[in-house]
């Protein structure tokens, strides 16, 4: 696969969550303003029949372009992307999105692990990866893989999460993720936006 030569500075910010994460996603999107130096990718667990179009729901919260990408669409900075229900969203080393409908991870498709692991091995720089509330162990392996590659990783304080299991499992798999609390979310996001 050939790497795109132009746009060498592409970096990703990955955010995963499940039950109890929606409000936090909204809060983050509110803080994000055009222009963004990176591509911001959200993976939220949702049922296959979910008809909610996230870019529509969030459209009044930010002025950054949002989409649920199509297979092979190029990943671009200054864009917000959402994983689509019933598919895994993979990050290709050629800086394109790839869809996959193989087995679910932890009963989830999209799975957070699928996206995060593919990003970790893609060769594309990951500026930050964050994992929030949820009731499965999805995301733990992806976060660990990213952290071991040297990328900054942030996990919600399980004590503050609506569903603590997902952040708990991530911290069990890898102890050194940085902790996100209600108190420091704003400053962490602002740091990432710098």
């Amino acid at each position, binding site marked *: 696969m050939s790497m795109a030569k132009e746009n060498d500075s592409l970096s990703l910010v990955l955010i995963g969550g499940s039950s109890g994460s929606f409000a936090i996603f909204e809060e983050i999107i509110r803080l994000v303003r055009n222009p963004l130096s990176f591509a911001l990718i959200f993976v939220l667990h949702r049922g296959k029949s979910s008809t909610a179009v996230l870019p529509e729901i969030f459209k009044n919260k930010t002025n950054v372009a949002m989409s649920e990408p199509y*297979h*092979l669409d190029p990943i671009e900075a200054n864009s917000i992307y959402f994983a689509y229900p019933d598919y895994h969203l993979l990050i290709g080393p050629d800086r394109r999105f790839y*869809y996959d409908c193989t087995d679910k991870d932890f009963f989830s498709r999209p799975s957070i692990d699928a996206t995060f692991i593919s990003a970790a*091995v893609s060769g594309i720089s990951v500026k930050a990866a964050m994992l929030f509330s949820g009731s499965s162990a999805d995301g733990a392996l992806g976060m660990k893989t990213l952290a071991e590659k040297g990328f900054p990783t942030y996990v919600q304080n399980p004590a503050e999460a609506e569903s603590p299991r997902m952040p708990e499992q991530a911290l069990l798999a890898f102890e050194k993720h940085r902790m996100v609390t209600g108190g420091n979310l704003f400053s962490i996001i602002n740091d990432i936006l710098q």
Partner: protein
Amino acid sequence: MVLMEYSELEILIVRIREISGFDFSGYARPSLLRRASRYLTTHKMDFPQLLAHIEQGGNVVYGLIQELTVNYSEMFRDADFFMKVKAEVFTYLESYPTLRFWVAGCASGEEAYSLAIFLKEAGFLNRSLIYATDLSNKALTAAREGIFTLGNVRTFSENYLAAGGKHSLSDYYHVAYNKAAMLPELRRNIVFSMHDLTGDGVFNEFQFISCRNVMIYFTLELRQKVFRLLYDSLSMLGFLCLGKRETLRYSGLEENFKVIDSTLNIYQKIR
């Protein structure tokens, strides 16, 4: 979970080709890497062990190829898609004296049976022939048997009703030994046969081709070649259906199709 790197995947692709002749070079790397990592995990191996393992050749390599190529499918996947096909495509095709459908990459037959059921309900299954092809013999054997687990059938039934099915899905199968077997009368108009989209050519002309979530496993270059094959296999004004996250973009054939539904990815060949 055992993770693989792209450099290892390239080595694996070469070894599989040398041992078996099967060529994965046209397969999209991101999903192939995911599948290969899952293979390592389920078989409790690391990469060097996998390389040693496939040296045995024969069934071992064959099994690996099966696992790396198997497609996930369910009956009536995407209710809105089937509603649209019935409303816009079936009504268009209704007047044809005979009809040929092609389910390209049919896995275990889920889409082919779904089509057969809705063609029956539309009243023209008798003058239709559904060709359902896959490159996996194992998948085709399962497809011919038409036997599904009751757990899966529960999902299929929900999908069927959501897609506007006129009866109950249970009218189309019988239950034995805790499995559901599709009625033989549905199979009468389905031809299951082996076909490799990446190597085999045109074998018939169709008024309708469904190739949903199959080309997502091919590289951009191979995908263009397969698009050409599908295009050449369609009769003029025939319909092409792709998966929900696929598009005609990057196919090189955008100009030759009219968009019937851009969200559900239904196209009609117009030149």
